[in-house]
């Protein structure tokens, strides 16, 4: 006992020797990029894709990065950003909606640091928002689902009635209708981003209702597992989810942040960053559609490829008139298109969607 205590005492006395002071100062001078994550990096979804972008910055630019997982959407996030800046971060990527106001607060204190917030709407001189046009790939996945369905009933498990989710449902529906005018999309709101047992139950209920392709806007591939268990099909999201359910998975629209993260980091390092908001799409390779699964309809690949090409060259727009909501109101007249502002605040469900938005 005494010997053990003695050893501890010696180690404690020696400990300041190990805690290097000079080494730390050196670390703080280096250009660093900080990432504030809302979930764990192993979530197989949202945070995993942002983390892949972080690794791309490290690998392609050789720039050091910092990250912190599971940061709550409170004042806590401001503290994390300040810690990162104290560690030498010159750029901060805040990858959850709830960080916006706290980021602006820290941005005002640190005018020489560049701030990037994923999916918000408030800016300042050194703080901008960025997001991807996920709806483009959603439209393509809708084409695959619309061709596949035998019952003409598609299901959609969705977390919350916010514009990003609503846009995805609408695009998926329009994609399905473009190849299958009989198709409907039945929406179930789960009011939780990540609750796989509940998502599975909701998928089963939709399948019992006759739906034979289940798409989703959640974190986990629960919809695919439910579809696989019942011998029907599904569409993944966030990442290529084919491995979770190889029989059921038709395809997955997914995020590919690497090109944006690498390019904008280079700009900030070169001093050429213009502090503008960013909303990239398939034309920038920020949004992708995963390779079609083995049970995807044979004719789908060619159609998807053609539509994808017209989305990339700008000759085709997903949200174009005539467009009606599912209450029968006209949203866009023939020939009209929708500006980014209207898209970003989208609060209606298109004709063909069975479901509603509480407000």
């Amino acid at each position, binding site marked *: *006992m005494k010997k053990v*205590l003695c050893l*501890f005492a010696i*180690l404690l006395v*020696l*400990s*300041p020797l*190990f*805690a*290097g002071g000079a080494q730390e100062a050196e670390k703080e001078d280096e250009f660093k990029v*900080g990432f504030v994550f809302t979930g*764990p*990096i192993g979530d197989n979804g949202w945070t995993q894709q942002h983390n892949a972008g972080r690794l791309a910055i490290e690998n392609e630019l050789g720039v050091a990065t*910092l*990250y*912190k*997982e*599971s940061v*709550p*959407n*409170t*004042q*806590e996030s401001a*503290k*994390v950003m*300040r*810690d*990162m800046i104290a*560690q030498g971060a010159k750029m901060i990527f805040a990858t959850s*909606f*709830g960080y*916006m*106001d706290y980021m602006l607060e820290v941005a005002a204190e640190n005018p020489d640091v560049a701030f990037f917030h994923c*999916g*918000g*709407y408030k800016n300042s001189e050194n703080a901008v928002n960025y997001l991807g046009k996920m709806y483009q790939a959603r439209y393509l996945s809708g084409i695959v689902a619309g061709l596949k369905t035998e019952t003409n009933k598609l299901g959609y498990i969705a977390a*919350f*009635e*916010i*514009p990003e989710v*609503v846009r995805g449902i609408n695009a998926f529906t329009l994609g399905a209708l473009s190849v299958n005018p009989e198709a409907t999309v039945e929406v179930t709101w789960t*009011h939780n981003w990540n609750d796989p047992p509940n998502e599975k139950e909701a998928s089963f209920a939709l399948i019992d209702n006759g739906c034979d392709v289940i798409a989703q806007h959640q974190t986990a591939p629960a919809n695919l597992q439910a579809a696989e268990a019942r011998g029907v099909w599904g569409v993944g999201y966030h990442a290529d989810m084919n491995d979770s359910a190889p029989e059921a998975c038709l395809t997955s629209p997914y995020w590919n942040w690497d090109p944006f993260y690498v390019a904008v980091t280079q700009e900030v390092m070169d001093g050429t960053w213009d502090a503008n908001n960013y909303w990239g799409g398939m034309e920038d390779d920020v949004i992708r559609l995963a390779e079609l699964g083995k049970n995807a309809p044979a004719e789908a690949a060619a159609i998807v490829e053609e539509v994808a090409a017209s989305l990339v060259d700008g000759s085709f727009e997903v949200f174009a008139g005539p467009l009606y909501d599912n209450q029968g109101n006209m949203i866009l007249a023939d020939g009209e298109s929708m500006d980014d502002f209207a898209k*970003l*605040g*989208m*609060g209606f469900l298109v004709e063909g969607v069975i479901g509603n938005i*509480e*407000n």
Partner: protein
Amino acid sequence: MARIVPLENCSMAKKVRIRVFAILMAFTLSGFLLLFLGHNPFEVYASMLDGGLGSSYRVKETLIRTIPFALTALGIGLSFRMKFWNIGGEGQIMMGACSATFIGLNFQQLPSFILLPLMAIAGMIGGGLWALIPAFLKVRYRTNETILTLMLNYVALKWITYLQYVLWRDHEAFGYPKIPNLVKNAQLPKIFGLHIGVLLVPILVIGIYLFITYTKKGYEIRVIGENEATARYAGMPTSKIILGTLFVSGGICGVVGMIQVAGVNMTLSIDVSNGVGYTAIIIAWLAQLNAIAILVVSFLFAVMVEGGSYIQTVFQIPQAAASLLQGLILFFVLGSEFFIKYRVIRDRKTRIVTEGEV
């Protein structure tokens, strides 16, 4: 075979020895974990301390975190005194935050000196009523308060989610799920760089200490905790005392919710409580419900949490490993209490095994 027997009169010196040993064990074991992750444990520990207390900014942040810990532990500690296991601090914080936010959003034209007290009272009532539900069900129908208070946390969380995503969603926010920020009038003023809620801590620590030790009500609460049947036999209105205490207990948690909304986050969100209600249970327990000890333990906890968060950023230690580190420290500290209350006796040789001979 070994037997476990209660240990009476554990001497102060021995208590200190056991606790120090437990803490050293925890740091040794987590040291190996850090070594395994490729870090120098001493560097990490030094940085952890630095993250909690390294600069005036960090001390301030640590104190801001101490406030909800201490207040909530004091609040639920009151119910623990009666052996009423109130696991519902989390939900009571949320409901308090919710009613305070309601006042803050709807009466924002009022001057601060009226609006803020109103919000605090609303927070107290919100949290208090939420705690009254399991208290009433317990005294009336003998339901299990542990399960009920725990489950009501989830009800409260779903309610706040509904408010954030639907009912109170900011219409200026382009459909994003966000409750509007509180206006300046509804934000707590600052004192020494901390929000004014910090003043509540010494007031409540002393108030609750005096209340429990010297008042008749405090005495009654203690008697109910020792033996409810005895209390009833002695003519105490036990049901009334349980209900009253739970209202105060939940009410204090509710005020914590108000403070977090008006002093820290400036808005209500589903992350408003963020586990404080659960951490406070461990704090109250470690402090053995002693009001002054709660203050000390809350501060140490805040240092540990702030430091644990800091090392994740500095050393890029994964969140899971940082939690494991904090878990190990807690495990050893809580586990050592066993050796303060009991001793292990080996029957055959009747040799007493104390912690020192392990």
